[in-house]
């Protein structure tokens, strides 16, 4: 059963973009923010496909093409660790190890309380403060173990 409230919200998003098919990526980005779980459910893909009159497979193709979309529920905060070269030479591997240790999960996993998901990202344009990570929309740089523990505490407190 599709949650009617979500369906309503999806239609509102589609209306905001004037039902233009060209806005599919924008619609998906907004829909992904509808719940705390940072993902797009298959049921919702159906609604989007119908409302925009685009074949389901096409919507699904777009959804799986872009790395910012997820079809599986994720944590409330997505911790994205940059793995591009400028961060790499500033020892981003160590940052990965610290996050894994502090959160008790491996790359790609979500904490049991569904608060954090750990994943990789390509360069986020913060190479001047590498090694860098992005949590939600915020960017943190020049990371050290102390700083990482501090940041996690901050989010846990929220």
């Amino acid at each position, binding site marked *: 059963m599709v949650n009617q409230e979500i369906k309503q919200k999806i239609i509102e998003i589609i209306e905001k973009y004037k039902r233009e098919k060209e806005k599919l990526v*924008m619609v998906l980005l907004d829909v992904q923010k509808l719940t705390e779980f940072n993902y797009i459910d298959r049921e919702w893909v159906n609604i989007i496909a119908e409302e925009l009159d685009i074949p389901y497979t096409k919507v699904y193709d777009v959804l799986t093409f872009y790395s*910012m979309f997820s079809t599986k529920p994720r944590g409330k905060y997505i911790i994205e660790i940059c793995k591009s070269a400028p961060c*790499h030479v500033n020892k981003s591997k160590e940052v990965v190890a610290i996050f894994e240790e502090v959160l008790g999960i491996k790359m790609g996993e979500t904490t049991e309380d569904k608060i954090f998901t750990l994943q990789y990202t390509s360069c986020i344009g913060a190479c001047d403060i590498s090694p860098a990570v992005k949590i939600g929309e915020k960017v943190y740089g020049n990371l050290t173990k102390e700083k990482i523990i501090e940041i996690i505490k901050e989010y846990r407190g929220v």
Partner: protein
Amino acid sequence: MQKTLNIITENVGQIRPDSVDEYIKIGGFEALKKAITMHPLEVIEEIKKSKLQGRGGAAYPTGIKWEQAYYVDKNPKYIICNADEGEPGTFKDKVILDYLPLRLIEGMTIAAYILKSPKGFIYIRGEYPESQRIVSSAIKEAEKMGYLGDDILGTGFSFHIEVLSGAGAYVCGENSALVESSEGKSGRPRIKPPFIKNSGYLGMPTLVNNVETFACVPYIVKEGGEKFAGYGTEFSGGTKLVCLSGNVKNRGVYEVPFGTTLRELIYDIGGGLPEGRKLKFVQLGGSSGPCIPESMLDIKICYKDLKVKGLTLGSGAILVVDDSNCIIDFLKCITEFFYHESCGKCTPCREGNKQLLALVNKFINGSATYNDLETIKKVGQIMKEAAFCGLGETAATAHLSLIKYFEEEFVEHINKKCRANICNFGGDKDGKR
């Protein structure tokens, strides 16, 4: 000679980015006012004189691109600003988006006026949500004040700009993939011809330029192409925003005149390497660019000088790598990037990156042979020649250049030696310590 300049980055951080009033106080929109009194071909002539070349990576002469767009006899024409900034190590367009979005908007509006374009898009990567908000706000303010939107400056000419978001795909920076993505589709490159300039957004003629390219235009129109050209070298006009990153003290974005050497940039502007470290190599232009040894640092930042040496400047990313790093481990990072970002449309890139990754891993875990070294060269060369788009064509640039300048380190790995002590041969599978 002055080491850094601020032609395009003038007043960065000194004005509220979305304030039209403050932008006008620093000379904003004077170029647009001047452009609407000129014939489109006169504006294009100034851009040609400026020797401005596209700052997105391919360095195509902007004046010629605009002239071609002008003569395309099909309407409406669309304008897309490429703010996808996906090349690792590049963070210079972000400076303009975040601090001087009105300069970009002014540059785009001048292009629109020349081409009688009703509509433009600024395609900003999904990783820059804050930049998207700042640019959207600047667009609204410019519309309110009559510099954008309907009936611009009472000329009867109307031009609207919309911000579009990417969603995390490096290949979308390629101009035909950018257009596909702007249409809401997966960003797979299109076959060319037809070229984007003839058949782009919704099949209509489309002008695609990088953020920095558009941001150079107001200065050129206002001060004249010759003055802009005068800052650079004989072959490369003006200044370039370069992004200094990696193992260097003063990382950041700097505006430098063409003609600056890499050594000046890294040591004088960048402050050199952290204490006790030695420079091993520099990668130019991001992950798709060549890696060069210390002995080549006296080369000038100039499209022609670089080309003579078989090099390119790309987006302006300059990554400094010190001797605590292993060439092969670095290459693994690069290869994983392209393996992940390949869109899968063509075989040389889809399969080539997979093979490259497997080969690099052999060097890391100690099972590589001389034959594997030859295979990397062969696969890399095939990708360069046969891939469908620029992503696959450049994915092996780092491999080929590192083999060219640092072959002995590959050989050391065949003999299970890693001078940086990073590769643990016969340790766990992926070579981690």
